[in-house]
Each structure stands twice: as structure tokens, then as C-alpha cells.
């Protein structure tokens, strides 16, 4: 049996409402500027919002395997830097400051790269006028049964008992990257400068002081909910446990992720005359099932039922919660202003 962490007292969980995401990457940049702006971290995106259907990052991660099947580890492989996408350097000096602005165009200095994170951003599937895409928000899943933790021979990965956050102890990490191979969501990066593995820390220093993680707090679309899964007052608890409209991504990976998704609703299809086909859906259910399992059908039906209720003029506490009229309702009490925190010297 693979190693499992001791049970936690409480588990922090998050809900991403995919129907509200604008794909603006404000979350991505909030994370980047806060945590991954040092040498060796240039190519890291602890938070990323991928266009789906699409390759995601690292390229084609959904097909790389990892995680568990029937309780046993599923073999995977390590992605290469080129699959994550190099952090490009651009010729800003020439174009902006070197007096070459009229005859040089902005381009990567490396030249021959043909892949990068978000390479297929906003690239739709399906044929016009029935094309479609949606956004998938990814951070570390802070799993209940983390494959990374089970794979580490150094016991360098631990799951915090008080909140379930999964962390890598960089003092113990030897850079072996068994974790990176084992994580089925491929959310672990290797820092070549420090020779250690690194990943999303769910902004635990902020959490400890009552502040929501940066990618949650900065989201202008009110997409992201956070809270303790057992906090009955929290939106996360209601969406996951009571109304059950937020479900895990790739539950078949066997790691019991604690990030949940409200799956995307579809606009209808147009027929050849440009008329709406009533009751049709642009995003194939089969594709959504490949991401969330068959349970996605129940969730989409529930959402449609609730929407029909509000159209009849009835109240829906579920939809009100998802709309989040008051931003503080999204953060399970983690509403302290980050501006009131003292930065470490």
C-alpha cells in the first residue's frame, strides 16, 4: 500500500465556478508576482488557467497518468522543460530602447520555441457557429491522498493536520522528482537553480493570518471560493456537501483532490438556418464526462433546474451563492485585507 498521510483535523477546500471565469489570468499573475519571480522559477505557473478542450500545461498533462488506480500507483513520466514551455526572453531592448522600433518586431530571443504555456489559449473546438471553449483553473489540488507524498522517498512532503495544505519541505527535498512524476495533475515544478521541487502552497502564510490566497482574492470574476470543508457556514461547504454542484476534476486519478469545480454550462447549438436548437448544448457532454466523470450530468441538470426556478421568479440560494453578491461570502472567513499584513523584512 502506498504511504498515506495521517488524517487531518480540518481540510481547506476550494470551488472554482467555471461559468464565471473570464480567462484574464489575473490569478496567474497574482501568484507569479507573489511566489515565483525568483531565479529557477521563471517557467513556473503554480496557478494557470488553461483553455479547454486543449493541451493545458505541461503539454498534454491529462495523458501523462500518475496518481492511483485501485489503490496502487499508476506509472507516469517526468515532463520536459519544453513541455512546460521555456520562460521566453524577448528583445525588448532592441524594440523599445535601442532605436530599432521601426525595423525590429517584438519576438522571443530563443527563436525556435514552438510551445509554451497557454500556447492554445482561446483556441476553440467545434465548427463556427457552434465553436466553443471554456477555462480550467488549476492550482495544487492539496489532495486527501496525495500521490506526491506517497512517492517521496525522503518524506519531504507533508500534509498539514490543521488545514490539509500539502507542502514540500525544501530542506529535506533532494530534487529526486518522484513527486513530479506521481502527481496526476502535474502541478509540481523543478527548480533548477535550487535543485528542489516546488508547487502551490495555497498561500499558507496568508491563510494563517486570515487572508485568502492571492489567486482567490485577486480574481475579478468572483470565480474562486475557499473555506474549510466542514464549515457549514462556508460557501464551499454548501456547494460541495449540501447542493453537490461542485465536483472534483478527474476523480479517477484516485488522489481525492480538494479543489472542486462547478462545470461549464453551454450555449445552445445553431442549426443550418442560424436558428437556435432548443435544449441543445454546445459543449459535448462526453467531453465533460472525460474531465469530471458521469456525475457532471447530474450537476448540469441541477444547475439548469435552479436557473429555471429563478426565471419563474423564485429564489435560489444556490445561484445567489454562486453569483456572490458580496465578495466576503466567498472566502469562508478568510476575508482579512492583505494590505494590513506586515511583509517579512
Amino acid at each position, binding site marked *: 500500500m502506498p504511504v498515506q498521510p495521517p488524517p487531518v483535523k480540518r481540510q481547506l477546500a476550494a470551488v472554482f465556478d467555471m461559468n464565471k471565469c473570464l480567462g484574464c489570468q489575473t490569478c496567474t499573475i497574482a501568484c507569479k508576482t507573489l511566489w515565483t519571480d525568483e531565479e529557477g522559477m521563471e517557467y513556473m505557473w503554480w496557478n494557470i488557467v488553461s483553455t479547454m478542450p486543449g493541451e493545458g500545461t505541461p503539454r498534454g498533462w491529462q495523458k501523462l497518468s500518475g496518481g492511483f488506480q485501485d489503490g496502487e500507483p499508476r506509472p507516469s*513520466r*517526468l*515532463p*520536459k*522543460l*519544453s513541455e*512546460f514551455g521555456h520562460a521566453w526572453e524577448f528583445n525588448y531592448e532592441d524594440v523599445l530602447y535601442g532605436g530599432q522600433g521601426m525595423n525590429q518586431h517584438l519576438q522571443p530571443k530563443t527563436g525556435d520555441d514552438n510551445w509554451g504555456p497557454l500556447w492554445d489559449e482561446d483556441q476553440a473546438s467545434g465548427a463556427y457557429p457552434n465553436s466553443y471553449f471554456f477555462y480550467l483553473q488549476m492550482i495544487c489540488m492539496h489532495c486527501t491522498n496525495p500521490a506526491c507524498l506517497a512517492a517521496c*522517498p*525522503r*518524506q519531504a512532503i507533508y500534509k498539514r493536520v490543521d488545514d490539509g495544505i500539502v507542502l514540500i519541505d525544501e530542506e529535506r527535498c*533532494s*530534487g*529526486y*522528482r*518522484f513527486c*513530479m512524476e506521481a502527481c496526476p495533475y502535474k502541478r509540481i*515544478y*523543478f527548480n*533548477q537553480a535550487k*535543485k528542489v521541487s516546488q508547487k502551490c502552497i495555497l498561500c499558507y502564510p496568508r491563510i494563517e493570518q486570515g487572508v485568502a490566497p492571492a489567486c482567490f482574492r485577486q480574481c475579478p470574476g468572483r470565480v474562486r471560493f475557499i473555506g474549510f470543508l466542514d464549515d457549514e457556514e462556508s460557501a464551499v461547504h454548501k456547494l460541495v456537501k449540501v447542493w453537490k454542484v461542485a465536483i472534483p476534476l478527474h476523480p479517477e486519478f484516485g488522489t481525492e483532490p480538494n479543489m472542486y469545480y462547478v462545470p461549464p454550462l453551454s450555449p445552445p447549438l445553431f442549426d443550418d438556418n442560424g436558428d437556435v436548437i432548443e435544449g441543445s448544448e454546445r459543449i459535448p457532454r462526453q467531453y465533460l464526462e472525460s474531465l469530471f466523470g458521469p456525475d457532471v450530468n447530474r450537476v448540469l441538470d441541477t444547475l439548469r433546474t435552479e436557473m429555471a426556478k429563478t426565471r419563474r421568479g423564485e429564489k435560489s440560494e444556490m445561484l445567489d451563492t454562486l453569483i456572490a453578491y458580496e465578495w466576503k461570502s466567498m472566502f469562508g472567513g478568510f476575508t482579512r485585507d492583505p494590505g494590513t499584513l506586515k511583509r517579512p523584512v
Partner: protein
Amino acid sequence: MQAAHNEAAIFFRLSWADDTKDDEIADTDQFPDAAAVLLPVKGDAPLLSMGSPDYPVNAWYWRPDLEAPFSVTARGLGTTVRSANGGVSGRGVYGAGGWSVVISRRMWAETADVAALHPGQQGKVAFAVWQGSGGERAGLKAVTLEWQPLEIEG
């Protein structure tokens, strides 16, 4: 394998064939070659389990992408921690289709968590090498499966 001492320090030279010189971590899926000398800290420390809580083992670990070799102590699988370096030093050279690596340390131990060595000692030693291009790291390595006798001439 060759060994020598000058009473103050002991030297091990490990030479092995290796078609691929993996002297850096050039990509996220690449690993460096490595070598180590392993010694019991005391008595009958078990080899394949990397020591035990009561009988630790001490390794001097060399890797071409690191500035210098360093000393670690283990009390069972996965328990390795850095220990007093005690003058562990060394250098590796790649040529003629293989590595030649010298790892040395001062004889006498300054702390209790590393192996104490002295002229006239009848001890034991083990060796390991890692093939970086084969993805070898941690317990994935070529290792002497039994302790080898170490006689330090007095």
C-alpha cells in the same frame, strides 16, 4: 576501486564505465551521475536498509553538478540527513568512457554521527554509483550488495 591513506586522511578512488556524461541537470527530466562511499557509524549497521535507528550509516556523496561532496547519515530508508562534514572532499573526472572519482575525508571523526576511521582498523565499506541518464537517483542505484572488508593499514 582503489584506496589509500596517509594517517591523516583516507582516499577512495571509484572508477566505472559510463557512456553518458551526465554532469548537470539540464532538463526537468534529467538526473546527474553520482557516487558514494558508505560506512557503518558503528558495529553491525545494516547495509541495504541504509542503517537502522540504533545503527546508523554514514555516506560521503559526490555529484558532478555540486561544488563538493558532502557527508550524510542515515538511520533507515529515507532518513538521510546532512552530517558533520569532517573534511569530506573530492573531485571527479570524466574521460575514456567513464568516471574516475576520488572521495576523501579526515580519518578521525569529530562527531558521533559519522564513521570514525583510524590506522589499524578492521572495518567495512560499501559503494554506490548512479547512472543519471537512466533516471537513477535515491534508492535507484548500482550498489555493492554486501559490506566489503576495509582494512586500514596501521
